[in-house]
Every structure is written in structure tokens, then in C-alpha cells.
């Protein structure tokens, strides 16, 4: 879907992005992760030509984006930024309708799309004619997301979209966003410096440092098969939690015991859940649960889960 070939960006003396290549697959959530100044935002902005690369090329659906008119390109790519960048002189509805209007949609179509998005992002109807500065930070960010999604572009670029929010609001907005069908459907490139957020949202993480890509892979790959010392170090601080979050029941399936005797009374849990989520369940209610995977059912409790997880880790 998106393919970057050897792209570099030099600002005067400084090299922000240094000859990197990567591919983002269709419907994939691709997270550019790194500390400030690692080049992740510059990389993102090169995809919709807010920044032009000094060297290298970017293809979207095999088409070189340089051959396309920049404005046309941008209208076909959704964009959400950290400080929302909402137009203060436009109402909430007008802000969401910006790109559809550029596409000259009919009034009715725009209106129904705006209302649909507002309800999806849990924005009350009464905000329709409100100006952004009358909304809370979380609400503003929801409007920003709605605007990015409005024209139903296949690609969505997100520059630290939850970065300016307090931790609680951030979790709420992020979870609501994760539950949108768009989140699953669209090709998303997201920039963040927040490791938890990257693990929460990413199909694959692209870890960057000093303008170079250090490693690209699933969260579990980065944790359990780090390419080098840097990758290992990068996740050390929150390693345990990240491991719990990046490993699903499906992944440790083979390490779980079979032993099921009485299946009727127990709660069921899907095999897509990660260890962290199962642990959350145990901490609420310390009873054994049933997991079903490919027609086979297994019973787990806290001890068997931990054992399987540790066996999985050792095997990797």
C-alpha cells in the first residue's frame, strides 16, 4: 500500500531522516516509535508531502506520490495531529466537513456524514454548532479524529494524536478510536513516543533512532527477538507489562494444559485476548476460565497461565 524507498531528509546541516525504507500493508496499523528528534514525524509528513524528501521515493499503490498534485494527494489521505489543528473560526460540524467540502459533496451527504461521525466518536449532537474553543481537550481531539476520517480516505496519518491529553482522557479517546470499524479497516501510520500506546495500537512497530530504522516487527518480535542492544534497552523499563500485552492466549496455546473436567459453570474468554487482559479478569475474580481456539477448549487459572507464559518466553 505504502512503500518508502531510501528516503532521506536533510534540514540545512542536520539529517533528520537517513535513507530509510519500509512498507506498510493494506489495513495495517503501522506505528513509528522513537524518542523526540528521531525523525518519526518527518517520516510521517513525507507521506502526504507536507515535507518533501531530499532523496528517495514514496509509492502509494505503486504510484510515485511525486507525480501527483500535492493537494489532491492530501485530500485522499486523512490526517490527525497532536494539537488537533482545528480551525478556531469553524464550528465543530464545519471542521469535520472540511475535506468533504473540498470534494464538493452535497449538503445532505455532508450533513449525514458529520452526524454519523459525531455519534461514532461519542460527540453529543449539541456540539454541532459549537466552536472548538468551547470544547474540552478530549472532545477537541475527537473532532480532530472525525475530521481526519470524514472523507473516508483509505490511508490515515496520525501525528501523536493522543499526546496532548491527560492519561485518563487519553485512554478513553484511544479505546473509543480502537473500537471504530475504521480503525480496523484503514491503513494507518501513527507516530508516537509512548511505548504503551504503540503496543496498544500497532500491528507492526517501526522503531527509529537518529533518523534510521532500528527494527520493524510485531510488538512481540521487538520484545522477544530484539535486533540489538538498543531495542532491548528501549523496552526495559516497562518490559513485563509490555510482554503481557504483546502475548495473546493464541500465542501460548501450545503451552497450556488440556485438563478440562467440568466445563459448564465456567466463564469463557476468546483466544485473541492478551495476557494482560486475562490477568485483569483474574484480579477481579480469581476463578478459572475457559478458552476456545479452533474448536478446542482449554481451562486456565492464574497458575497455569503464568506457567504457560513463562514456557512460551523460554521457547522464544
Amino acid at each position, binding site marked *: 500500500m505504502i512503500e518508502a524507498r531510501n528516503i532521506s531528509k536533510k534540514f540545512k546541516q542536520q539529517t533528520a531522516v537517513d535513507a530509510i525504507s519500509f512498507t506498510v500493508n493494506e489495513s495495517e496499523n503501522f506505528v513509528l516509535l522513537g524518542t523526540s528528534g528521531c525523525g518519526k514525524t518527518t517520516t510521517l509528513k513525507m507521506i*502526504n508531502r*507536507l515535507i518533501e524528501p531530499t532523496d528517495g521515493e514514496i509509492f502509494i499503490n505503486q504510484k510515485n506520490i511525486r507525480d501527483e498534485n500535492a*493537494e*489532491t*494527494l*492530501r*485530500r*485522499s*489521505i486523512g*490526517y490527525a*495531529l*497532536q*494539537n*488537533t*489543528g*482545528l*480551525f*478556531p*473560526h469553524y*464550528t465543530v460540524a464545519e471542521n469535520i466537513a*472540511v*475535506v468533504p467540502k*473540498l470534494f464538493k459533496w452535497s449538503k445532505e451527504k455532508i450533513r449525514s456524514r458529520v452526524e454519523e461521525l459525531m455519534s461514532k466518536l461519542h460527540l453529543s449532537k449539541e456540539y454541532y454548532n459549537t*466552536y472548538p474553543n468551547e470544547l474540552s481537550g478530549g472532545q477537541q481531539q475527537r473532532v480532530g479524529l472525525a*475530521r481526519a476520517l470524514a472523507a473516508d480516505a483509505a490511508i490515515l*496519518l496520525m501525528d501523536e494524536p493522543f499526546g496532548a491529553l491527560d492519561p485518563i482522557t487519553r485512554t478513553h479517546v484511544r479505546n473509543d478510536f480502537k473500537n471504530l470499524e475504521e480503525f480496523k479497516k484503514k491503513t494507518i501510520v501513527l507516530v508516537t513516543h509512548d511505548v504503551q500506546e504503540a503496543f496498544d495500537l500497532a500491528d507492526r512497530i517501526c522503531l527509529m533512532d537518529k533518523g534510521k530504522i532500528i527494527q520493524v516487527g510485531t510488538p512481540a518480535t521487538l520484545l522477544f527477538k530484539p535486533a540489538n542492544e538498543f531495542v532491548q534497552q528501549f523496552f526495559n523499563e516497562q518490559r513485563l507489562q509490555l510482554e503481557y500485552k504483546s502475548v495473546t492466549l493464541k500465542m501460548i496455546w501450545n503451552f497450556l494444559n488440556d485438563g478440562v473436567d467440568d466445563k459448564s459453570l465456567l466463564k469463557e474468554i476468546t483466544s485473541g485476548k492478551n495476557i494482560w487482559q486475562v490477568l485483569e479478569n483474574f484480579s477481579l475474580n480469581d476463578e478459572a476460565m475457559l478458552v476456545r481456539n479452533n474448536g478446542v477448549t482449554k481451562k486456565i487459572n492464574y497458575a497455569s497461565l503464568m506457567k504457560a507464559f513463562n514456557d512460551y518466553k523460554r521457547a522464544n
Partner: protein
Amino acid sequence: MEEQQSLLEFMLQQRGKLLDQTIAHIGLTFTSLLIAVVIGLPLGIFIARRKKAATVVLNIAGILQTIPSIALLGFMIPLLGIGPLPAITALFLYALLPIIRNTYTGINEVDANVLEAAAAMGFSKWQILTKVELPLAFPVILAGIRTATVINVGVATLAAYIAAGGLGEFIFGGISLNNTNMILAGAIPAALLAILFDFLLSRVQKINLKKIRVAVALMPFIILLLSSFYAIPSFEKNKLLAGFTPEFMGREDGYLGLKSVYKLNIRNVVISDAVMYKAAYEKKLDIISGYSTAGRLKAFDLVTLYDDKKIFPPYYAAPLIRNDVLQKYPEVKDVLNMLSGKINDSIMTELNYKVDYLKQSPETVAKDFLTKNNLYRQPRNGNKGTIRFGSKIFGEQYILINMYSMLIEGYTDLKVDTKTGLGGTKICFDAMTNDQIDMYPEYTGTGLLAILNASAKTLDHLKQNEDSVYNYVSDQFKKKYKLTWLKPIGYNNAYALMMRRQQSNELNVHSITDLTNYVNENQK
């Protein structure tokens, strides 16, 4: 004393003129403002994109702003002549800085995130400018327009100096004529206009976000409408045009007398005496109301028209001094009288010519004259006391004041403190009566008409005779104001109508009656 007219009566009586002047004033303000917006706004947008050009442009506009307004008008005369064109140009230059600067600031202050979002949504550069930058910068840009408007309402009063009309005609006429009502009739509406426009624009500025886009679209039309108030006076060719000072316009021994005694009805504009002679020389004007000893008469080859019906009273110059000063320093009287009989009309014209045209300093001219007449002495640097001399704002008065200062400092132990360049009769005279100056050179005719406001009966009785006017004025001033007229210096700086020598010969116009006849024959 004749009964004083109230301000309201004056304004009612002059309501036609007042309305014309107010309309011309609004027109001047907004025509120049419109041009300033048309040029300043794109320039501000341009420099917001080119930071290097910004410093240069803002500095140039800043320097323009620091030029004193009257000087800027002066610069305009050689380039653009007189009338609305130089006035509007000067006003436009004043309005430019606030508009450019605020446009620049307003656009720079637009949140970078908003601009990035606009670009990322796929707005073109033009759409970013018109849909995002300008609306968001609008309140700041409007504040600039508001500043420019208020500046222009004020500066536009000076337009009267160069025949562009406006409320300045009353203000400067009033100052010259010692007529407070006339000053207020110009100044109050001017102040009200400034307050009114400032208030209206402040309302627009507070407009909420929703209406901003409407306001942005409406602004140009409103300014255009207001600027259309100013129907630029038509300067038809082939007809004589007169330029009169504001003072001359309101005087019995001026335009009023020309109308009533000579029945002269000539197209005229109001203009400052500082630029009048040059305008006549450059054929922008044909007839001007000059002073008979003006140096520029010689410089610009102008001739005076003979006052065959004697409407201009004699204007013999003499030092006017406070009685208490004469008592305190009796020696002053004889020293100031030393000039008496030393300067006749042609000598004064020659001295004025040196200052006005050859650009010698009044001090040099004064010193040379005194030296030549064996009157000059080195200053004694005494410290007996200080005496304060004032002068009006034209060359001749500067020369006289320099002579008097040199004489006083050479012959007495007094020090002289000079306050030169006081705007007109009213300012000089009020400074005297308020004990801010002790002496200034005044003219008998001015004392008679502008200060004493002599009635037609008195004028008739005095028969415009040199001695009778001096005696009457001297007598009245002693009684009413405790001021003394010392001996006349000897020259008569009366009003005179003037025209170019060449034109005077071509048209065979040599007296004011000739002029009246010519105008009546050719302008019907």
C-alpha cells in the same frame, strides 16, 4: 464691544460649509485609507511569507511614519502640486504602516498547527490564505485599520494647508482669525469623527468568530462607500483659480471684502501661505492672497494687484509689548525702537527674499543688516533678567525677532528667551495675555481686525489711514489689554492679491477691479 456669537449660532450659520468640510474630511480619510488597505494588505501578506523583506518594508513604512505630517505635505507640493492628490498621498503614507504591520503580525500569529492541518487537509495556498489566515488575522488587521483611521482623521485637518479642504479650513482659519468658535466648529466635528469611527471599528473588531467571514467580505464595500464621499473638486482649465489662506477667507479685509466691495466672485481653494507662492509660480493657482513684502514675490516674479477701492488696511509692523515689562525694564523701550524708520517695504522684501528664497538663516540676515546699519553690538551676557520674545510662523517674524534679540542682548543686561514659530495671531496674542511671552511683532491691521474686531463703522471712520489706525489700535490695546504698541518699524506688510507677472500682462489685469471685470466677462 460687539456681542459675541455663540458656538452653536456660528455652526448653524455656517452649516453649509461645515457639512461640505465634514464630507470632504470623511472622503479624504477613507479614500487614503482605501488605497492604504489595497496596497498595505497584500504587502503585509507578502512580507509575512518573506521574512527578509519584512524588515526592509517595515523600516521604510516606519520612517515614513516619523516624518512630521506638515513636512510630509510640504514634500508633496513639488511632486504633486496642491489639492487632493498630494493630501491623499500623504494620508495614504501615514495609514500604510499600521496596516502593513498588523497584517504581518496577524498572519504570523496564526497557529502553526492550524496551518499545518489546513495544508494536510488539501487546501491550496490561496485557500489557506483566504479561508484560514485572513479570517484568523482579521481582528489584528482590523486593529491596524482602526489605528490608521484615527490617525488619518487627525492628519486630514492639515489637508486644508494645501487646498484639499476638510475641517482644517475652520481650524486654521480660526487660529489665524482669533476666532474660537471657528476653531471649535472645525475641531469638535473632527474629534467626533475620530471617536465615532474608532467606536464603530471597535464594534466590528469584537465581532464573534461566526460573523468574521461576513465581515471580511463586507469591509471593502464599506470603505469604498465612505471614500466616495469625496467628490474630488474639479480643476477646470482656462478659468482663473484663486488660493486664499484660511485667515484671508474669514476677514473683512480679505475675501469677505473682495466679495462685498469689489463684487469679485472667483473660484477659490483654501491653502497655507507656506506653499501658496510656489503654487502660483507653478501655475497651480492664478491669484493668491499674499503679503506685500513677501520675499517670494520677488523670487517667483509675482506682481501685486492695485487695491483701487482700498479694502486692505495698512499693516505697519511694530513691537507689541506688555506694559508691566516696560515698567520693570524701562531700557527695553528705546532699544526696541532703534529699528524704527530703518526698514521700508523694499528693504523688508529684500530681507525676506534672502530668507525665503536664498535660504539664508534669519539669524545671519538679521546680523548682516544690523552690522551694515552700525547697530550691532556683541552680547553683554548680562544677568539682570530674562525677557521673552515670541514670533509668528513666517520668515519675516523670525528676522525681526533675531534683530530684537541681538539689540536687547547688545545694549542691555537682559537675556532673551525666544519662542518662535507660534502658529498665528491667536496663539501669539493669547501667549501675551497669559503672560507666556513679553513681546512679539504685530501688524496694525491685524490688531484692528483680528484682535479688536473693529466694526464696519470704525473702519470707515479710520479711513484706512496709516496714522489713525496706529493711534486707534495703540489706544485700545492700552485700555483693554494693558499692552503697548512701540514705534512702527516703517514698512507696510498689507494684504495684497498677486498673480504671475506674465499672466497679469497677458490678461491686462493690474488692479482688483480689472480682475473683477475679467472674471465676470470670462466665467459666465
